[in-house]
């Protein structure tokens, strides 16, 4: 009868109960009694949220949007953990690549591009491992569910892995250079190369701009905040991550060139960051769309 009163019976069951009620006085009085109970339940007075409560919640949300809470947000989203995991994986990727591919070669014969390709291949393996981990944790097949929903995660892992591979590659080569060259001559050469690096500076800047826009598309969905700090942070982080890697793949590697590229990337990221901030402030674009 309770389910009958709450309208939770099928059509056939309703007909059956209605017919039975016509014949059974006991059930009829039980139904009335239940109706009275439900009537009393309806007497419960309603409460409304006070302005104070609304204000408190609003303030809390505003704080969440703020800079101080960003750290907590990153921790909660396990972002730092993921990045740390990616860094470790990047290191493993490069060390293993160097070991496998160059054990019979002297260090100065190592092709940075080969290392970079290794980094990318390892990143692919890493993504596959991530997929497996995700499947184990949630029981959902993310390949079937749609890669696009996990694109930000995949992009994060790939970018960080490539960044680590790139930085380590340059570190290895810088070590090698300082070992075989006289320090003073090395620095003079470096300085000269840096001065001649303006072409690479422009290339770096252009690639930084492109990578910044890609980063925005892939990752900015995660940051709803529209503050300068966030725009610059995201822009610089991902630009520095992806631009040197891409550029190394395009031009021959030299330490001076690399410095020029980094400067170009930095300037590009900064320009893009300021430009984005201006566009957001003018409401020309919405970051999160």
């Amino acid at each position, binding site marked *: 009868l309770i389910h009958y009163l709450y309208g939770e019976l099928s059509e056939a069951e309703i007909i059956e109960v209605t017919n039975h009620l016509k014949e059974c006085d006991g059930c009829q009085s039980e139904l009335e009694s239940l109706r009275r109970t439900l009537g009393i339940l309806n007497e419960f007075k309603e409460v*409304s*949220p006070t302005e104070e*409560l609304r204000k408190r919640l609003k303030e809390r949300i505003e704080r969440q949007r703020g800079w101080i809470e960003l750290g907590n947000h990153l921790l909660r989203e396990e972002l730092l953990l993921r990045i740390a995991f990616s860094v470790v994986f990047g290191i493993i990727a490069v060390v293993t690549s160097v070991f496998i591919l160059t054990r019979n070669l002297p260090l100065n014969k190592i092709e940075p591009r080969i290392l970079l390709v290794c980094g990318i291949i390892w990143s692919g393996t890493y993504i596959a491992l991530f997929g497996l981990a995700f499947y184990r944790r949630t029981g959902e097949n993310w390949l079937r569910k749609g890669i696009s929903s996990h694109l930000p995660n995949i992009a994060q892992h790939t970018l960080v892995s490539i960044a680590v591979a790139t930085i380590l590659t340059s570190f290895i080569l810088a070590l090698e250079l300082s070992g075989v060259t006289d320090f003073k001559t090395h620095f003079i050469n470096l300085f000269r190369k840096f001065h001649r690096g303006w072409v690479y500076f422009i290339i770096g800047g252009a690639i930084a701009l492109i990578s910044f826009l890609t980063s925005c598309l892939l990752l900015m*969905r995660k940051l*709803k905040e529209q503050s300068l700090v966030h725009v610059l942070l995201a822009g610089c982080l991902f630009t520095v991550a992806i631009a040197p890697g891409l550029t190394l793949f395009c031009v021959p590697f030299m330490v001076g060139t690399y410095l020029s590229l980094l400067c170009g990337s930095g300037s590009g990221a900064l320009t893009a960051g300021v430009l984005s901030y201006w566009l957001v402030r003018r409401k020309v674009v919405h970051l999160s769309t």
Partner: protein
Amino acid sequence: MAIRLDLIIQDSDEELIRRFQLGNADAFDQLFVRYEKPLLNFLYRFTGDYQLAEDVFQEAFFTVYEKAQKFDLSKKFSTWLYEIAVNKAVDKLRKKKVVLPLKSEIESIEHDQISPEEDFEKREIQTRLQKALSFLSEEHRLILVLKHYQGLDYKEISEILNCSVGTVKSRVYYALKNLKNYLEE
């Protein structure tokens, strides 16, 4: 007379949360306006403690704000919201070991314009009801509030409480039976 359709057709909860996921803060505000009263009433009726209800209310909406990006759009928003609220309320009740019955001295309770006699009678019923509700087990009170006051169907309740529809049916039955007995005593 021309009728503006956009004033009549409201966006669904899921559409609003989708827009919020894309960065539209107004969409969250709309969801808040839509659910603030039902949620607070649900929590007050379930916990029996207005202060606790306010705390959980705040936490539940804050969680929605935080986790909105992870919300699966194929699911129903209200189910998700109540699930969050129920879990938080149950946690709080267990931690604080709140002693029922429900407090009646709430400033924000809406008072109707009624005569003193009617007022007295209504208060009597209120007190009886609150006492009877406080005698129910947490499980039964929860199911009754979800079914009777929030008007959710058995399937939705089973999703919120993560149990079978059969279990919901049986709990609703025993909850109302017990309540009726307490009221008649």
